[in-house]
């Protein structure tokens, strides 16, 4: 049975709430806008594969800005295919991320990535 409009609204609200939950639970994700995904291309500066959360830093393609992204715990990401050597220093990468709510030039949560060989990891929404 198809959901009614009212049901859809409830499901939509639930889905939005899920997007806003920090999946790792270590700290608040309040500064991130979990309803939006964006992309940026750059080169890998560092990749930390660890609990309670991973982190990735890249330098923008024009070299002007260092972007920092946090990601879920390594324990969760490993099951999705992420590895300690997924992001190699100086490698080209396109990062898909949730931006900051205040629009600050900086990273938000890592959603997925397109690696230098074209392989994808995580979630890559259609553009």
């Amino acid at each position, binding site marked *: 049975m198809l959901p009614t409009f009212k049901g859809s609204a409830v499901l939509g609200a639930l889905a939005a709430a899920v997007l806003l939950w920090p999946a*790792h639970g270590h*700290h608040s994700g309040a500064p991130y806008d979990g309803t939006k995904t964006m992309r940026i291309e750059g080169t890998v500066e*560092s990749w930390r594969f660890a609990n309670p959360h991973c982190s990735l830093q890249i330098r923008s393609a024009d070299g002007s800005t260092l972007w920092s992204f946090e990601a879920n715990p390594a324990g969760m990401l490993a099951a999705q295919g992420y590895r300690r050597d997924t992001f190699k220093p100086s490698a080209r990468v396109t990062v898909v991320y949730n931006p900051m709510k205040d629009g600050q030039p900086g990273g938000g949560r890592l959603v997925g990535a397109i690696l230098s060989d074209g392989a994808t990891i995580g979630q890559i929404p259609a553009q």
Partner: protein
Amino acid sequence: MTRHRQPNVRIVPTALAVIACLTLDGAAQEAAWENANGQLGSLARANLAQDHAPHPVDLTGTYTPEGFWEFQPFPKLKPAAQELFDRVRAGAAAGVTVNEVTGECWPPGMPIIMTRVWPFHVIAVETAIVIVFNFENQIRWIYTDGRQHSDPNVYVPSYNGESIGHWEGETLVVDTRNFETHKHFIDRLVPLSDQFRITERISSIEGGDRLSIEFTMVDPENWEGNWTVTKTFRRQERMDFVESPCLPSTNEGLPAMGERYIEQLDEEPPDGEQR
């Protein structure tokens, strides 16, 4: 020609005396860790050998919390608690994290440690049920050996509290008290006082595929009446985990943990109290 050194007759007995003292000091030091009230340890051979009733249900397993970690619906909060609650909620709506205690490595404590996303192992023996949490390597002991709660003047307050359990049919009823209250909140939102107590009714449901825990929480200083919420947990069969420490470097480079997004509470310890 080989020269044989003669033992120094003064040094040898002195060395022996020092070794003896160190050994005695070591034994005394080890004994100093014993339970202050003389209670047999939960894993002591003499305790395990006693005729404890076997647990009617073996809760041993690995579980993950289901649903959002908050304990909704919230109770009617007292004014000071409501003020904090509103401030945290308003901050979140504005993209600012108020009172980010857990992110800054303060233990989440009970009850949030049970529901905060991460898996946990439950290991049951007759005298105790041990819960090992992946999140920040936390641990809970639920004693089922018939002991009473400790004198709160002796027990070292803890974020997960002192838990004593007994069985009512196939439901494990756990009474937890003696909490540390410093920087201990229910998910940043609700403060806790030394009157905080939790009663859990833990049941294995759906043939052991899930756990159901009814939490009833009281803290007359911070809310009115009983705050009762039931949470469920799903058994996992392909899940081990490695440590997850909160370290000084844990938050390095994380945008959300940058100073511009964190608002601290103006909290000072009572006069003369050191934290």
